[in-house]
């Protein structure tokens, strides 16, 4: 299997083989980050622009570290420092970035579809680092890598995703990816957090956390966006945590070796209790470590593909 895509815009378009190729490639990069000298010359002379039109610390840092460990030159542009605040359009900014001849543009944007627009406009490879509430493909890939490392496979696992599915790009990308890899998916949360016809994407829906946790091999807790409270997606943080916080009691319903995951940043005590976040089943920090390897793999595959 050879990588042939110019861009990584989402998980929805990928085949299972492509996902496996990315994960296999990421495995081989995992070791680089454990060396004393954490750098390989693979992407020397390549330029990667991290173009973040929405605030992000960990994803941007992860991409930056991934690029640097491959010896690429990485440049960060964020919304507050970019020309976007001066009223320049995305397409003008894109054309300007293109004119500087980078090899890869990593984009995060608050609008769904912005990476797709960029990919149509410029010849460079585009990586979607999160677009609106659409997709966050690198997050799903690092999640799948983490699960595969721990469980040996993705196929046949019971994976439960809990939280605001409607407004989560992490949930969408994971649903697409894990379905392709043969996992059994359940999403849980109040009906206000379930997008229309979500079952059509191949998931079971549960409104009760206790029910959704039954026999789970993996549980992913989504970060609650507190601004949603104002739009009546949920009445209060207090009530949300009373019904949907993963804690020492309700986790008993899951398999003993359940993996507890969270894309971060964690609202401790809201969607996940501190003892579970820090407990033996938690792989939250492994997700972060694997994130660097997955992003190294993608930078490698995409720059290789366009030569």
């Amino acid at each position, binding site marked *: 299997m050879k990588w042939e895509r110019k861009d990584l815009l989402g998980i929805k378009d990928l085949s299972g083989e492509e996902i496996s190729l990315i994960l296999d490639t990421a495995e081989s990069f995992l070791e680089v980050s454990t060396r004393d000298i954490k750098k390989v010359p693979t992407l020397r002379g390549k330029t990667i622009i991290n173009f973040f039109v929405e605030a992000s610390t960990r994803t941007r840092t992860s991409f930056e570290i991934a690029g640097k460990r491959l010896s690429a030159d990485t440049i960060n542009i964020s919304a507050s420092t970019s020309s976007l605040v001066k009223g320049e359009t995305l397409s003008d900014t894109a054309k300007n970035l293109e004119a500087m001849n980078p090899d890869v543009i990593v984009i995060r*944007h608050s*609008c*769904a579809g*912005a990476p797709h627009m960029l990919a149509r406009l410029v010849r460079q490879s585009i990586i979607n680092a999160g677009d609106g*509430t659409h*997709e966050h493909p690198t997050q799903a890939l690092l999640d799948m890598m983490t699960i595969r490392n721990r469980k040996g496979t993705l196929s046949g696992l019971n994976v439960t995703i809990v939280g605001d599915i*409607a407004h989560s790009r992490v949930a969408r990308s994971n649903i697409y990816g894990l379905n392709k890899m043969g996992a059994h998916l359940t999403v849980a949360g109040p009906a206000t957090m379930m997008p229309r016809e*979500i079952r059509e994407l191949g998931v079971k829906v549960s409104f009760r956390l206790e029910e959704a946790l039954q026999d789970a091999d993996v549980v992913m807790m989504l970060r609650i966006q507190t601004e949603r409270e104002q739009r009546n997606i949920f009445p209060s943080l207090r009530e949300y945590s009373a019904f949907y916080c993963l804690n020492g009691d309700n986790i008993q319903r899951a398999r003993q070796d359940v993996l507890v995951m969270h894309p971060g940043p964690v609202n401790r005590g809201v969607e996940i209790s501190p003892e579970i976040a820090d407990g033996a089943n938690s792989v939250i920090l492994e997700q972060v470590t694997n994130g660097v390897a997955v992003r190294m793999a993608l930078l490698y595959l995409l720059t290789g593909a366009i030569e």
Partner: protein
Amino acid sequence: MSILLKGGRVVDPSRNLDSVKDILIEEGKIAAIADSIEGTAGETRVVRLEGKVVLPGLVDMHTHLREPGYEYKETIRSGSEAAAAGGFTSIACMPNTDPVNDSRAVTEYIVKRAGECNLVHVYPVAAISLKSEGRTLAEFGDLKEAGAVAFSDDGKPVMDSGLMRRALEYASSLGLVITPHCEDLYLSAGGLMNEGRISTELGLPGIPTLAEEVMIARDLLLAEYTGAALHISHVSSAGSVRMIRDAKARGIPVTAETAPHYFTLTDETLRDFDPSFKVNPPLRSPLDRKAIREGLRDGTLDVIATDHAPHAATDKEVEFEYAASGISGLETALALSLRLVEDGLLTLSELVRKMSANPAKILNIPGGALLPGADADITVFDPDRSWVVDPLSWRSKGKNSPFFGWTLKGKVFMTLVKGRIVYSED
């Protein structure tokens, strides 16, 4: 100088006419329609129309001309030229200009500008409320005297049911129709596309069909209670069609329109995040499209209107979320609608009724029939001519069409307004 249209297939549903006829036009009026007319040599321009179809001039009761205020998107002149090229001899233009058409001054300005352009008949639709802010009723009587033919707060729906009731009552006392844009702004808040399977896939905030249907339900109740005439703009959903059908069966004085994009496209076209497909109300599901087509077939939907909404590239070539809603529709409407005839859904005669006689009747304006003595407002099209949609060649300033590159069949050949050729293929 007279014009003789010779040898065309004349379709006039007002008289159940569908046969080859000659039409003689003198001094801007239809002088005669007969099997064979000979013109006076030297004084008559003879136009041979063998193989062409001759219709009463098409009437678009839902157009945005953007002037005054948004002349970079469209002007009364460019919009009128686009209408003529699309086969429309009369258009009604929506009030969401800047300033909003809520006063005699703006209505008179539009009428005056249209007169200067001297292309197609332009009928202003005035605002229901001042600045379309949904608070204070506009001066309907004054607006009517200035030339307004209907009232709408298009694009800015009237959320206040009390105001809507008064608007219906007051307009009915003037014999004019209210043509609302039905959308509950609380239900549609933040929405960018139809809510459903595809919005869930794409993570784009949805506009539920409910947002349209709740308001149609309200306005039908108000029309029933007040007895005032109601014409529902751009119907897009199956539930809306069902409610309007039921309302008509119960005798409520309601008529309704849809636009070509709603019977042609679905929300599945949004998968590429292409803002050309962004429109309000949004493109709906395949089931909704099916219901719209059925509503056209069984007569629930009386009118096909364009909802011509021209935008500049700067409004459209941005992130989907930031892109303006709307489709530039005047120059594709007839060809897209002819597909309904091709599909066996409507006869040509029924189609012409929905694009000419019905809208003229609802707005109580002239047109919709080819009658001796009437203004010679006539549309001629070539039913066999295939053409590729290329907005860059359009008269409209709005190049925002989701049909770019489509091959359509049936092209406007000639448009006459008051006997004057305002558009010709040659």
